[in-house]
């Protein structure tokens, strides 16, 4: 047993500072290691969920939900009832208390499985890893010759009511199966009483004798008379406990019914092809969205939506690869519906959604992303759609896709606030950006993360690595990327791979999930990163023939962290044969890595909680209705700012920006600002809103730069200062300015205060690295306000449109190379801006017209040296100089 304990330590007790390398000398025997792994009780919890093709999607939620272990596979849905409920039904199973109940059936099935095809299990499938555990497939299709799983949607809140149904038992009312007990029906009724102790006599099998008309079980058409219900959600059932088990179903959900069927080789009738495939109710969405999940289902049912994959039989040779997205609009049931197409050789992939949910611009982007993700997962659309075993997976994939679309559109339409609303608004745009949300970190933290990741990528696991046993390596790590709460912290992947991985994560809702609820996550699947596969095809160089490699994606998540790894098999490593499942050691090394990274949790959190940099303003501050909330001093500063643009507008029409900069109003506002900051900091600590605002004010005054000194130093002591240069960090701007022209502090403060204070939102997309930066959720939440959320919503919608104009430019640019082309229409647009006007909601004053606030949303496209996009949203009063500077500064963006 001492092996076991030391091994346990190696695997899991990795909270320390270094990756522990077990030094147990006893582990020299390969067989012993394997046997430990195979025979110990230390099977990783995800092992049960590995699919036949080696794929794994194992998700465990954190907090109070940790009992709801949800291995997520479309074919294999497990739901365990939460602990307190499970207590009730476990009376019969007390002797097995240590063993999770759901394993019972698994064991039973596995035994059958082994006895039947034992020979195959023992024969090596691929190159046997020395440490590799051969995953035991327990849910294969073939295994189910005698058992079949049928998933039914049940809703205990909507039981069949009415006179004739009142007397029926739950089995009949909920599921619709009639079982006629050999004992008389009166007894059966008494079983319903909760106080009656379970009988000790051997319970009777629940054989299906009939169906309740119009019930779920009849409608599904897969349950046959004569089948015997043996388990509900892997809980063994019989006539004794069925009512209790069913009564434990807390709400509308999908349950898995396992039947023992007497019919050999059951042909489950395939659903009608003309019928738009109903997304299977699935546990993931329900778990993520809780009660609203049902609502989404309802909306989806009423909403025209479809995904199709068609084969074209083209006689002519028009089958060239098209990159643009043809689309069609049509009116169905008096609603405008968009259809977007993608053509791949002879096949046509099309997605359709109503215009009120998804605008055409958005739909086109979505289609592109869907195609990219499907290619990443299945190599080509053809493989994805034309292989029968992928059908349930795609069902799941698209059901997630549609539900997510509905959810986001609902959230977007609501005037909500908070992180989720921000997510929904920004998803409009950023879901389709060729980039990942990036969080800049202090240099030391960043270095530390990079070191840890590099260590992992070296695959030097000492005696746990294959080298130690002089075997060929199984995989090589191509790169890793690390997410924290959905933000990218570090990336060691090529850009295209990063985007592939990020898209995959987005489609499975992992990035937003990671922000709060992941307890543990293990994903393993073979992937087909376009970047490597395309490169492989080019036969230009003879000296290096690219490997016939296969690629695997391994994602391990632990709480807020998520580590994505792209593995290559077949290059310098041993060839992958068959469908290898996730390897213990790799998963555990990643886990160890994450545990190590968890130490950095605090510093990352600290970064997330720093005052926004660049400073952001809330739109509501610029409307006089917000007067009550803030000190009049603050307000007067704001008001003076508000008046500035009007004066400027009237006074200098055609003057250049030089005369405009030292505008007197602005300068007085700026200096007031600096001096008052100190006083306020001392004076008002009571109102959190105020202090936060003062803090912001302070940081904009001094910005944490050495140059300013003076007023800002009071608060600076408490804050940790980050030396990472940021394009928006106006501290560095000031420094460079003062170095360059040795201007006095006052003037530079003016400039910064002018631009900083009026910045509402921004997105900066860098296409070389494939990342973008925008304010963090926390920063946006802190601003709150009633108008600001609408502004953010508008900003993203507007950016979508701006981006589509830019896209046109990029296309034209690509087509017309260097030839001087006469542009028709708008020409190659490099900058595009829109001015919005808003006034406070529910303005009650009848006499006065509501005050107005105007703000710009401006996007800029930089083609040189590499395409970059920059979107900002700021108050109308911003001096043009500041805008120019902000744009220019983005070039100094360090990554």
């Amino acid at each position, binding site marked *: 047993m001492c092996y076991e304990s030391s091994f346990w330590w190696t695997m899991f007790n990795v909270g320390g500072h270094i990756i522990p390398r077990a030094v147990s000398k006893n582990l020299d025997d390969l067989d012993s290691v394997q046997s430990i792994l195979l025979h110990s009780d230390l099977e990783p919890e995800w092992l049960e969920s590995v699919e036949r093709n080696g794929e794994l999607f194992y998700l465990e939620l954190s907090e109070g939900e940790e009992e709801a272990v949800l291995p997520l596979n479309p074919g294999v849905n497990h739901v365990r009832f939460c602990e307190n409920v499970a207590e009730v039904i476990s009376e019969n199973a007390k002797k097995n208390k240590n063993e999770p109940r759901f394993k019972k059936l698994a064991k039973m099935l596995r035994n059958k499985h082994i006895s039947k095809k034992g020979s195959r299990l023992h024969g090596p499938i691929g190159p046997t890893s020395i440490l590799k555990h051969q995953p035991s497939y327990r849910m294969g299709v073939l295994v189910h010759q005698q058992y079949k799983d049928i998933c039914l949607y049940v809703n205990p809140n909507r039981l069949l009511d009415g006179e004739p149904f009142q007397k029926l038992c739950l089995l009949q009312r909920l599921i619709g199966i009639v079982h006629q007990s050999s004992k008389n029906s009166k007894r059966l009724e008494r079983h319903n009483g909760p106080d009656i102790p379970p009988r000790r006599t051997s319970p009777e099998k629940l054989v299906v004798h009939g169906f309740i008309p119009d019930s779920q079980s009849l409608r599904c058409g897969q349950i046959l008379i004569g089948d015997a219900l043996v388990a509900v959600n892997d809980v063994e059932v019989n006539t004794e406990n069925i009512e209790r088990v069913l009564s434990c179903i807390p709400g509308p959900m999908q349950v898995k019914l396992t039947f023992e069927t007497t019919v050999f080789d059951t042909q489950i009738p395939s659903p009608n092809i003309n019928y738009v495939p109903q997304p299977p109710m699935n546990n993931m969405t329900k778990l993520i969205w809780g009660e609203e999940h049902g609502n989404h289902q309802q909306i989806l049912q009423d909403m025209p939506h479809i995904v199709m994959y068609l084969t074209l039989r083209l006689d002519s040779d028009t089958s060239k690869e098209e990159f643009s997205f*043809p689309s069609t609009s049509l009116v*169905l049931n008096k*609603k405008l519906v968009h259809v977007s197409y993608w053509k791949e050789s002879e096949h046509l992939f099309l997605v359709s959604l109503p*215009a009120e949910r998804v605008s*055409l*611009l958005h739909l086109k982007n979505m289609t592109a992303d869907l195609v990219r993700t499907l290619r990443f997962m299945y190599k080509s659309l053809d493989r994805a759609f034309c292989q029968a075993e992928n059908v349930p997976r795609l069902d799941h994939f698209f059901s997630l896709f549609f539900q997510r679309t509905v959810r986001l559109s609902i959230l977007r339409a609501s005037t909500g606030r908070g992180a989720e609303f921000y997510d929904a608004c920004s998803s409009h745009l950023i879901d389709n950006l060729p980039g990942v949300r990036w969080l800049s970190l202090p240099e030391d933290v960043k270095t530390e993360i990079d070191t840890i990741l590099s260590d992992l990528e070296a695959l030097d696991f000492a005696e746990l690595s294959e080298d130690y046993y002089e075997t060929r390596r199984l995989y090589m790590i191509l790169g890793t990327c690390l997410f924290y709460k959905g933000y990218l912290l570090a990336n060691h992947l090529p850009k295209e791979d990063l985007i592939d991985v990020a898209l995959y994560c987005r489609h499975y809702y992992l990035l937003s999930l990671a922000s709060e609820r992941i307890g543990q996550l293990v994903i393993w699947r073979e992937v087909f990163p376009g970047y490597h596969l395309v490169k492989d095809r080019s036969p230009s160089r003879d000296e290096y023939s690219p490997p016939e490699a296969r690629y695997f994606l391994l994602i391990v998540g632990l709480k807020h962290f998520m580590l994505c790894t792209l593995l290559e098999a077949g290059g310098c490593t041993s060839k992958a044969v068959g469908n290898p499942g996730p390897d213990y050691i790799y998963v555990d090394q990643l886990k160890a890595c994450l545990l190590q990274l968890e130490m950095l949790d605090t510093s990352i959190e600290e970064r997330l909680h720093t005052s926004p940099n660049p400073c952001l303003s809330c739109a509501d501050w610029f409307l006089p209705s917000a007067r009550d909330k803030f000190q009049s001093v603050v307000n007067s500063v704001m008001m003076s700012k508000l008046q500035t643009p009007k004066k400027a507008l009237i006074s200098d029409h055609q003057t250049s920006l030089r005369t405009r900069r030292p505008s007197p109003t602005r300068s007085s506002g700026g200096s007031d600002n600096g001096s008052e900051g100190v006083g306020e900091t001392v004076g008002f600590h009571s109102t959190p809103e105020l202090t936060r605002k003062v803090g912001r004010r302070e940081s904009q005054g001094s910005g944490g730069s050495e140059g300013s000194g003076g007023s800002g130093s009071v608060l600076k002591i408490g804050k940790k200062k980050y030396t990472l240069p940021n394009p928006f960090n106006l501290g560095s701007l000031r420094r460079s300015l003062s170095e360059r022209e040795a201007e006095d502090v006052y003037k530079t403060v003016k400039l910064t205060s002018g631009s900083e204070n009026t910045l509402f939102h921004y997105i900066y997309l860098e296409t070389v690295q494939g990342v973008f930066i925008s304010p963090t959720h926390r920063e946006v939440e802190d601003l709150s306000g009633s108008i600001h959320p609408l502004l953010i919503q508008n900003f993203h919608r507007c950016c979508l449109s701006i981006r589509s104009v830019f896209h046109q*430019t990029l296309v034209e640019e690509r087509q017309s190379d260097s030839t001087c082309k006469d542009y028709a229409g708008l020409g190659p647009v*490099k900058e595009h801006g829109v*001015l919005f*006007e808003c006034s406070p909601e529910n303005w009650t004053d009848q006499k006065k017209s509501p005050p107005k606030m105007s703000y710009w949303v401006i996007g800029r496209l930089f083609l040189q040296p590499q395409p970059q996009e920059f979107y900002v949203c700021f108050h109308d009063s911003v001096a043009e100089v500041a805008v120019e500077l902000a744009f220019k500064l983005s070039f100094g963006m360090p990554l």
Partner: protein
Amino acid sequence: MEDTSVFLLCLTASSGVPLYCRSKGSNRQLTFSVIGSLNGVHMFANNQDVLLTSTRTENSRVVWRTFHDSINLIVMSCENTASDLSLNKLLENVFNAMVLVIGLDDLVNIKNVERLKKDLRACYKLIDGFLTESEKMADLTQCVDCIITHDVTILQECLDGFTQAAESDFGCLMAGGKVVTATEKWWRLASQDVMLLCWLVASLSSHSSRDYPVYLPQGSPTVPHRLLTFQLVSGVDVCILCGPSPSLQKVESELVERFWKPVVDPLKACLRVQLRSFPASIPLHRGIMGLLLVNRDLNKTLYTVQVHPLEDMHRTELKFTLDQRRAALRSFYTLALSHYLIPDNVDEKTIPCEEMFASGFSHHAHQCYTVSSSHKCYALKTELHLLFLVFKPEVPTFSMSTIANKTLQVFTKDFPF
């Protein structure tokens, strides 16, 4: 298919018989099979209770519209400046033109297709005018093109008197197909009707006088009115809309001379401002290349791409040709209108056949601009006006807002439009 070709098909909705096919920028005719499949796909969808509205591919767009369950119009455009907005406007204009010439009754109850085909020939010229975009912008804005002259008060008086004497309320003075001035009642006609009448007069070959029956697509689609036009000087026409009386001869012999002879010089002056659409004395910023001003109350448009005609004349080669300016202004108008600036007269009840992207915004957009290497554009929306400007690329981006506001002031205060 050529880069700039546009095809317009008209078919009967019930039987799919082609009524006519007009094209622009292509010598080839559409083959019958193409026409058949374009209509067939629409018909197929219709049988499935799906109304096909538009489709877009890499280099072309097709828009379908059915009018009164009787006439199908299909447009296929390969122009890269085409948009759903512009093509839908085109189809509306074309159908309205058909109503204008032959009346709604004959279009809704088709008794004899061959006869209808013959009748429709009368509006080919008008329809072709919409296909080949010209000096005018009204087809897109649906607000009639106008010009500003110095002597507008004198001409207005003459027109009012002339119209009254002709026992009508609706009179209009046009120069080169653009409205110089019109009676108050004329302005109260539906903007599409006003626009169509103007295009009709411009499309007809010049005659000294004419008596033309017209149906007003919005105002009276089934009862024809008489449109009397008289050429005052070459290029300048006056027209009145009237009932059975008075006769053409009577007006021509008795009224035209009496009212218009004294103002021949101001009439000739109207022709001089045509290039610019407004007098040279109106000062505008030198950076402005093109201007489009829409009065949203009176539904009239002021449009020019030669803001500084003299300057343009001196330079032998234009950096940014007039055609490019026109295309830029049209594209920018389309972008702004379809994405940002919400038109006020959105009918909630009608089923939208094109997406209203702008209505998804929670705050209203009032200004927008684009910057490209060849030119810059700026749009401004106020209570009463829509202003679109095309600037030279040298104009600093930040100054566009100021210039636009100042330009608008010129046209609201100094020279009210």
